[in-house]
């Protein structure tokens, strides 16, 4: 294909967690506007490999916008300039010929860089393990979930919270590096449902405790997270977490 876009890419390169990193400039020609952003990265990596250079490490998996693996801070925004999409669903038609694109990893004390654009997001796993679950006795007499009545509005809110894919865009775009949208969503999805009630109090206490231990910043209600979230999760979930935590600590 001829006459594609010519781009200047400034990419964060870092050999490993300990090594100092830096922004490195690459020129990439003939980029199709129909490519996804990750396909553009694949083409760049192909060129780097042909030249005998080290390819750029970046996270990706499903490339359908549902797994939460892709990240990348593109031109100052988590998952790039479009709203409600992950980086894999961002296409090069969102850019212009001759553009300079800055590509950086998520920046957070809780997300150390593994290599280049790849960060360690296991902090989120540990927060989930602290309470982001319900205990179900699977002895063979498990109660059918559909047998428990749930008000439609609660089910909708719980589902909206449960659409969180744990990508970490909220942390990356928060000027404070706070993880409260993630934790708020994970607390909310259970707090709203009858199945979440038995562990309601311990859940919010333990998840918030783990969140603080991971070195994330404090939420000051700036609201950048809900704008940059690829699943458009509302900060109402943070408000709900605030209430849950207060209630858990005030009630005997």
């Amino acid at each position, binding site marked *: 294909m001829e006459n594609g876009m010519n781009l200047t890419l*400034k990419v*964060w390169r870092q050999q490993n967690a300990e090594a100092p*990193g830096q*922004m490195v400039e690459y020129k990439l020609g003939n980029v199709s506007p129909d490519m996804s952003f990750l396909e553009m990265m694949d083409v760049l990596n192909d060129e780097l490999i042909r030249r005998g250079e080290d390819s750029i490490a970046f996270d990706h998996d499903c490339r359908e916008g549902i797994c939460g693996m892709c990240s990348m*801070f593109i*031109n*100052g*925004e988590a998952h790039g*300039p479009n709203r409600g999409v992950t980086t894999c669903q961002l296409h090069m038609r969102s850019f212009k010929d001759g553009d300079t694109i*800055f590509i*950086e990893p998520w*920046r*957070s*004390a*809780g997300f150390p*860089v593994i290599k280049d654009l790849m960060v360690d997001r296991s902090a989120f796993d540990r927060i989930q393990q602290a309470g982001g679950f319900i205990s179900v006795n699977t002895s063979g007499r498990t109660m059918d979930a559909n047998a428990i009545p749930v008000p439609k509005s609660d089910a909708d809110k719980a589902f909206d919270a449960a659409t969180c894919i744990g990508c970490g865009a909220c942390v990356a*775009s928060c*000027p*404070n*590096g*706070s993880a*409260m949208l993630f934790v708020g969503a994970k607390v909310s999805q259970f707090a709203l449902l009858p199945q979440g009630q038995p562990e309601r109090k311990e859940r919010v*206490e333990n998840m*918030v*405790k783990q*969140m*603080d231990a991971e*070195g*994330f*910043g*404090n*939420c*000051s*209600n*700036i*609201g*950048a997270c809900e*704008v*940059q979230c690829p699943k458009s999760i509302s*900060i*109402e979930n*943070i*408000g*709900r*977490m*605030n*209430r*849950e*935590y*207060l209630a*858990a*600590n*005030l009630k005997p």
Partner: protein
Amino acid sequence: MAKGIFKSSLTKKYTMALTGLFLISFLVVHAAINAMIFFNDGGKTFNEWGHFMGTNLIVRTMEIGLFAGLILHIVDGLVLYFQNRAARPVKYAYEKPSASSQWYSRSMAILGTLILLFLVIHLKDFWLKTRITELTGNKHMYINGVWMENLYSEMRLVFSELWVVILYVVGCFSLFWHLLHGFRSAFQSMGWSQGQYKEIIGLSGDAFSVVISALFASMPIAMYLNLVH
């Protein structure tokens, strides 16, 4: 109550919100009493209220609480500021924060610092003179046979200088932007800004920020322009 609550990031949030709301309630009282100058009665009503505020035991006790609340708000804010800076040890090479948030929401620390600097000047101009040193204008006046401190005359004197008026207006702008984020933020932090309440709280916050800041700013301006008698 779990022991962890005192160290929690959420407790810092509640502290910020509750002290903020307490300070907001003070602003309402302060603005309401100061607005008495607009009665154009030579400061009679205003001085009467000033006398009440300065001599009433309950008000004087609450004043201690006010300073405590202010200090708590400042200390908590500083802790949050430094913790949040530490939460991002490596900065982005390219940032575009304007794409997803308001500048004043991101600038609460600097706006708060400006308000604090203003407060130092403001307390020196009025509070210090009534509590520790002496008024510099016509110090006293008789109202209904009671010998009262003439704060009205002090205001006239302080606000007769243009640079002071400008300084106060700058202080009011800092307050305006601080409140524009702070008011709704306090409700969100307490988890009250949910569902149908979110919009009404947001709009109330915007209206409150405009009204209270404009009211405060109008006082030095009106006095400088001799619109108050």
